[in-house]
């Protein structure tokens, strides 16, 4: 099936400082793709750049195609039709993502008017249906309230309702649960999974919460310092990570089952984009790095099992014989 979105060699720089170094990414219709990595690795910037939502000082190169239609540096009118209508986006801090001086009902109706031409009573009825759909109790009574009269979780539900208003083919969820309590996080994840099943829209789920990604996504891209370092199915990456960085992300998560062991944090910090290391950006923090890594940037290459990997000295491939023996014992 033809891809819904194809990103090719997307590069972004702020004031001459490169923060994305050529991202390539596809999203198939109806697919759920996870984008993980530490803060500042370019997960959000990728999609803000794709939709033209970065500040004007950002310079953007490359190609972002939505079913053949070029979005990268496209005229404003084309982007305005795509935003909310074909690709919708929700953000990290729902309480400040809603306009504080406009009633939530009006904010919802605005999206419905823009993308579906619904006004007046029809718009109101559809807005109430959406509020019900995302689980806002007493939607009718709360239609005229302001965002500060809702909790953080409810604000995120309202954001999701607003995103659904345009019946988009793709929803970008940019760390939608980071600012919420754990129980509310689970509810929002359930809601996203349910809505995806009901509407058939594709979802790009940006997060540094690997558990949440596993719950929502089919496929995962791991990003580091403006590059994709490993890409594969959830089963591949979670079962057997091969990039030392991906492995590091898993080692830094506490386990609920099995013997108790110390957490292994990834030492060091993400490199400053103004002074990137000459070779692999992860080399200074990597236990597997050799001479090659300090001078050459590894390319993202397809592997035998279907995943893509950008590492000169990855963790070994899984040995089928050992898997068999493990299964027997």
């Amino acid at each position, binding site marked *: 099936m033809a891809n819904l979105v194809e990103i090719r060699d997307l590069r972004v720089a702020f004031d001459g400082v490169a923060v994305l170094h050529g991202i390539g990414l596809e999203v198939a219709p109806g697919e759920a793709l996870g984008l993980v990595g530490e803060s500042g690795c370019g997960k959000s910037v990728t999609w803000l750049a794709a*939709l033209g*939502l970065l500040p004007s*000082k950002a310079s953007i190169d490359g190609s972002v195609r939505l079913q053949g239609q070029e979005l990268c540096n496209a005229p*404003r009118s084309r982007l*305005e*039709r*795509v*935003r*909310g*209508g074909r690709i*919708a*986006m929700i*953000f990290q*801090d729902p*309480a*400040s*993502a*809603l*306009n*504080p*001086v*406009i009633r939530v009902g009006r904010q919802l109706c*605005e*999206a419905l008017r*823009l*993308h579906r031409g619904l006004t007046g009573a029809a718009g109101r009825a559809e807005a109430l249906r959406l509020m019900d759909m995302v689980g806002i109790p007493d939607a009718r009574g709360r239609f005229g309230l*302001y965002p*500060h*009269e809702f909790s953080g979780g409810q604000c995120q539900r309202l*954001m999701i309702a*607003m*995103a659904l*208003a*345009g019946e988009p083919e793709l929803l970008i969820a940019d760390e939608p649960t980071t600012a919420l309590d754990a129980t509310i996080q689970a509810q929002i994840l359930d809601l996203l999974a349910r809505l995806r099943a009901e509407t058939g829209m594709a979802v790009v789920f940006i997060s540094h919460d690997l558990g949440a990604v596993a719950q929502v996504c089919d496929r995962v891209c791991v990003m580091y310092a403006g590059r994709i370092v490993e890409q594969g199915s959830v089963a591949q990456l979670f079962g057997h990570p091969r990039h030392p960085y991906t492995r590091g992300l898993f080692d830094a998560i506490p386990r609920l089952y099995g013997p108790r062991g110390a957490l292994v944090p990834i030492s060091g910090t993400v490199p400053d984009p103004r002074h990137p290391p000459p070779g692999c950006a992860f080399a200074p923090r990597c236990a597997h790095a050799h001479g090659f890594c300090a001078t050459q940037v590894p390319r993202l290459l397809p592997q035998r099992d279907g995943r893509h990997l950008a590492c000169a000295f990855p963790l070994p491939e899984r040995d089928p014989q050992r898997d068999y023996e493990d299964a027997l014992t």
Partner: protein
Amino acid sequence: MIRFVSLRLLRALVTVLAVMTFSFVVLRMSGDPAEVLLGPDVPQNVIDAFRRQWGLDAPLWRQYLSYLGAIFQGDFGLSMRDRAPALDLVLERVPATLMLTVPALILKLGIGIPAGIFAALHRDSAIDRGVIFLAILGFTIPSFVMGLVLVLIFAVTLGVLPSGGFGTWQNAILPGITISIGGIGIIARFSRSAMIEVLGQPYIRTASAKGVKWHDVVRGHALPNAAIPIVTIAGFMVGSLIAGAVVVETIFSWPGIGRLLIVSVSNRDLAVVQCILLLIAAVMVTANLIVDLLYGWLDPRLRTGTAH
């Protein structure tokens, strides 16, 4: 809401009372009207008689109480200079001052706000830098310098406008411009930074992300939020409708409140000075009260008292 309004009203009254008390005490501590009005070579018994006549021989607290009592009965005292009711003297000067300050206020808001917003929307462009430069120039040049420079250019060199006086609309142009320029600069700077702050907020990105056209994002989503800080500074400008022209009225010999204040202070004409200060305080406090109520209208978070 009632609680909100009544608290603000109470605060306004306390402020006016504080201004009254302060001006009353400071005026009496800073010089003797008898000596100023009667001159240096007057015999002591004349001075004593003058003091008795105006009640200046009583202890300060008694003078203060009788002053307060009179105010509450609407009696603002007599001018020591021409024995006319102080309130009448002050009120007859109000129209002249408003003739300068009201058009100036319209200029300040009408030019300052659009200029600031336009600069914010074209941030870091040549237009933006130009607006900032002119704004800083406007509010850093003191009005007495600005006034004299304008007189030099338009009255002395070009000879197209009168250098002072009162009567025709031409007389009002130079003083009006002198008053406005600083305020235009302040409002422009303030509107610009308010707008820039708002444009960086996540809800503006949300509005763009849902496909709202850029000019509707600015008009419908950014301006209502930027209006909140702009209203604050506009409130100050409204509050200075009476007091804002002291220096300019003096430069251009404009017969308004400001000039009356200067003359009355140097004459120690207690009742008139107190009356003017009370009027200034009342206007300022009323303007602030209106701003507070506007906040509640502009920002729903303040209405319910559950702001983040």
